[in-house]
């Protein structure tokens, strides 16, 4: 979690008076003073935090600088987020004024170019706008958004809500198998048009949050599945998560780490270039011994290893077998 603010450390409001801050500090300093709490490191740490908070807040200059975000809780300078490089960088497009031309469009400048400041709108005509006797019409601006969705939603598709402001939402239908960086266009959900022209579109760039265990390759899903030593040696039926919910899979007797099993049709089901395609899920087994300090298992393995000398590193060349016996 985030670091406590000095106000939180002292338990006062951010608009507390100097007097309130001093009182809060005295009370806490007494409570946590190391001399009154011998052998309690937690109290000592708290005392230090309280002292540091008081030092910062009791100095009006420092307190003002902290309030402005210029220094952090420890009094160290914070990097200033100068707005200008952001405004002029790639991210700055987000805050362009409504009605400004699209990215990739220099409409405003081209409208001036070649017409000596004359009538605008020749290009606008191709987008349904243009000028007429009654007044000016211009299609509304497109609006750009980005939306981060989770891995499973991206795989299976579904509805997402994109918040535009605390009271305004866009419902977005995510097609199954959507890819990172793909842009969805919602027609007519952009800025309003001028005059009789239609509104612009909402362009939503989709980002996919990584999943703790699923990985995607095209339409196929890959997952590493931990199995116990007993399951690997004896075989078992185990539940396996898929993007559409858990299924039961048979681990063949005598499986090993790295073995890959395929769940046909359990990948992503989507339309691509007009055709229905369905991926598979690939499950790679990973044997997890778990109870490796189990004396019963150790005892069994001692006997067993003696009768079955093996060298899993034989392919790595000479000299590696030595370690196995030791």
């Amino acid at each position, binding site marked *: 979690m*985030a670091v406590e*603010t000095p*106000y939180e450390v002292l338990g006062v409001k*951010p608009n507390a008076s100097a007097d309130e801050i001093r009182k809060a500090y005295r009370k806490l300093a007494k409570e946590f003073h190391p001399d009154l709490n011998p052998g309690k490191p937690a109290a000592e740490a708290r005392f230090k935090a309280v002292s540091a908070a008081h030092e910062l807040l009791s100095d009006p200059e420092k307190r003002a600088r*902290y*309030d*402005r*975000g210029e220094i952090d809780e420890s009094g160290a300078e914070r990097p*200033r*987020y*100068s*707005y*200008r490089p*952001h*405004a*002029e*960088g790639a*991210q*700055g*497009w*987000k*805050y*362009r*004024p409504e009605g*400004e*031309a699209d990215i990739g469009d*220099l409409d*405003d*400048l081209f409208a001036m170019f070649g017409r000596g400041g004359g009538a605008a709108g020749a290009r606008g005509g191709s987008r349904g706008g243009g000028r007429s006797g009654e007044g000016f019409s211009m299609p509304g601006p497109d609006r750009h*958004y*980005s*939306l*981060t969705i989770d891995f499973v939603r991206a795989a299976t598709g579904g509805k997402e*809500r*994109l*918040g*535009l*402001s*605390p*009271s305004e939402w866009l419902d977005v239908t995510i097609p199954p198998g959507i890819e990172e960086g793909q842009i969805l266009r919602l027609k007519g959900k952009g800025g309003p048009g001028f005059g009789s022209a239609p509104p612009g579109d909402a362009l939503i760039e989709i980002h996919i949050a990584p999943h703790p265990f699923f990985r995607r390759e095209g339409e196929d899903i890959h997952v590493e599945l931990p199995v116990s030593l007993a399951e690997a040696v004896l075989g078992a039926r185990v539940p396996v998560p898929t993007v559409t919910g858990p299924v039961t899979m048979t681990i063949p007797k005598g499986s090993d780490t790295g073995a890959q099993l395929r769940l046909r049709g359990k990948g992503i089901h989507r339309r691509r270039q007009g055709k229905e395609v369905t991926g598979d899920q690939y499950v790679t087994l990973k044997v997890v011994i778990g109870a490796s300090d189990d004396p019963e298992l150790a005892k069994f393995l001692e006997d067993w290893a003696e009768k079955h000398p093996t060298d899993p590193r034989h392919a790595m060349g000479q000299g590696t077998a030595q370690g196995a016996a030791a």
Partner: protein
Amino acid sequence: MIGVDELVRRFAELNSVELARWIENRWVMPESEGERWVFHEVDVARVELILDIRREFAVDDEAMSLVLRLLDQVYSLRRQMRRLCDALEQQPPEVRDAIRRALPTARRDSA
């Protein structure tokens, strides 16, 4: 990327009620991630800009809308200009020279 809580904690001058109003006014446009707002660096910089303007020039909400609109127009023009300059930069030397010659020299007495 940070959330509302972290942003409000970072700027003691800022509270979440007014931040919500700023988002509503589209002064700040964080990304929505499900039910929560996510602020990118550009958004944090913009919050800081608004706080600076409000503190240094005692600007109220109504005037702030105007100030931000004008600032956005300036930055928009600068971005457009940058793109035009980049395009000119890619032209052959004779085209660049021709444009340079065609640019009227700014003279003090021209106004």
